[in-house]
């Protein structure tokens, strides 16, 4: 596939999707409050363009901050679990249990725990919802490292740190990026959950909420689209990073 084609294909898909959507709304004669159509979105975006920019930025940086936290936590805990079987056995049930708790129920707990710290709260929720896949991928990547890799370096007198740097880390990168792609979308869910359930006047979640209150349905749909666009954007940032740092693992595709 040429690079032009690779660029054009998703855009064509997007246009077809928008046309179908518009057509569906038109043929069913749905009013705005059932389903807004793509042609309503433009005006909604334009009307609230400054709010979209401002709140979009809020949501974006909170999500990215939450992700960074999740990466830092996931890499450290994943390393501990990957290298020590005891720690793995001790921590797995805890992690799984925590991950199983619906995060909507955590929102009020966090909000009460850190009253008024809206930024921190939102970042924390993005973190909590997204660290799990990262932790698991790192720990599995490390614990399934074939012993021969370790033996070759150990027999040369390499330290554990050298083994991690030269072999374990690069070898785990493809799995790490796979998990990061999942974590990116999860982190957006976390941010918006906090912004919608515990509205505090900032972020796209709040814009959605105010659309709901003022029965501005095109605005609500516009927020959803904006979130989708940001999600796609961040996802592709990860894809690019993956190409740079773990591109060697990609050969099977061609």
């Amino acid at each position, binding site marked *: 596939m040429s690079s032009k084609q690779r660029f054009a294909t998703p855009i064509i898909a997007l246009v077809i999707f928008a046309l179908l959507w518009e057509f569906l709304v038109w043929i069913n004669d749905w009013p705005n409050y059932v389903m807004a159509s793509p042609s309503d979105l433009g005006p909604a975006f334009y009307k609230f363009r400054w709010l979209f920019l401002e709140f979009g930025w809020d949501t974006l940086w909170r999500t990215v901050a939450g992700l960074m936290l999740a990466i830092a936590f996931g890499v450290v805990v994943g390393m501990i679990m990957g290298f020590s079987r005891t720690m793995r056995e001790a921590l797995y049930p805890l992690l799984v249990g925590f991950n199983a708790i619906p995060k909507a129920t955590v929102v009020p707990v966090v909000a009460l725990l850190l009253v008024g710290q809206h930024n921190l709260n939102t970042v924390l929720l993005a973190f909590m919802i997204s660290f799990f896949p990262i932790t698991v991928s790192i720990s599995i990547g490390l614990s399934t490292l074939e012993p*021969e890799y370790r033996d070759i370096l150990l027999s040369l*007198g390499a330290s554990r740190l050298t083994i991690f740097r030269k072999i374990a880390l690069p070898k785990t990168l493809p799995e790490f990026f796979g998990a990061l792609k999942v974590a990116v979308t999860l982190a957006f869910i976390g941010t918006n959950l906090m912004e919608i359930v515990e509205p505090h006047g900032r972020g796209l979640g709040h814009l959605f909420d105010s659309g709901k209150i003022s029965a501005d349905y095109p605005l609500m749909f516009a927020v959803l689209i904006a979130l989708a666009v940001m999600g796609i954007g961040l996802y592709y940032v990860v894809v690019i990073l993956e190409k740079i740092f773990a591109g060697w693992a990609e*050969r099977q595709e061609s």
Partner: protein
Amino acid sequence: MSSTPSDALIRISDVKHAYRTDAGPLPVLDGFSVEVPEGAFTAVVGPSGCGKSTLTRLIAGLLFPDEGDVILHGEKVTSPRNTVGMAFQNPVLLEWRTILDNVCLPLEIVPNDLSRKQRNDRGYELLAMVGLQGFEDKKPSELSGGMRQRASLCRALAHRPDVLILDEPFGALDAFTREDLWQIMHELRHNEAFTCLLITHDLRESVFLADQVVVMSGRPAKTQYVLDVPFGRERVLDDLYTPEATQMLLDLRHQIQVAQGRPLEELEHEPGDPEPGAGEPGS
């Protein structure tokens, strides 16, 4: 076991080793001894699971015996020493590195004062020896299994180790590729100075490559039988089809059967077996 202590580079005497498992200690080696003179090539054969890989880990200093001594150069092995090179059945090349960078990996770890260029030159030199010139910049995934195994041998030799430990390096290869690699082993031995201990399941391989073949008994393993191979350094595959070689292979085959604990009656039917070594290639 006739060599005096001074001329044996690897000296393993009466080694005992047990793994601690959930079900209690699992004795793996019990009274195993072997001596490999400097520059010699020793092959170790034995039933599956008898402790051959454990032996390689003892020599590499990755594991220590409960009793007995593992001595290299007259010194007891108490930690990994970077004068050892290892290669396994699984070539474990690093997929994100080029073949050249894979081969030069030991030079990044073992202290040395080679420049980047000198290291690469060493890599080029070794790769040329095994017929991989032109593949230096390829990724491991672009190579066949036999080529990857050759690269793995080069990596094992990059830092000019005096002891080369090979744990079934050819076990996963097809018969013809394996024979190619046997020839390459001879060439490497011709060009590089190392003392080699080869673990194998292939009796023909052991006779073709080694000066001495040691048969390990079943677990817990001790030295069961030592065969001296009277061939010189220059060998061709046809040597394997001489009556002399056939007799050696037969000897070894019987010894393996004893080690496996098979009833000796079975032996009556075996002498006609045209390929005594083809019993268990790899595992």
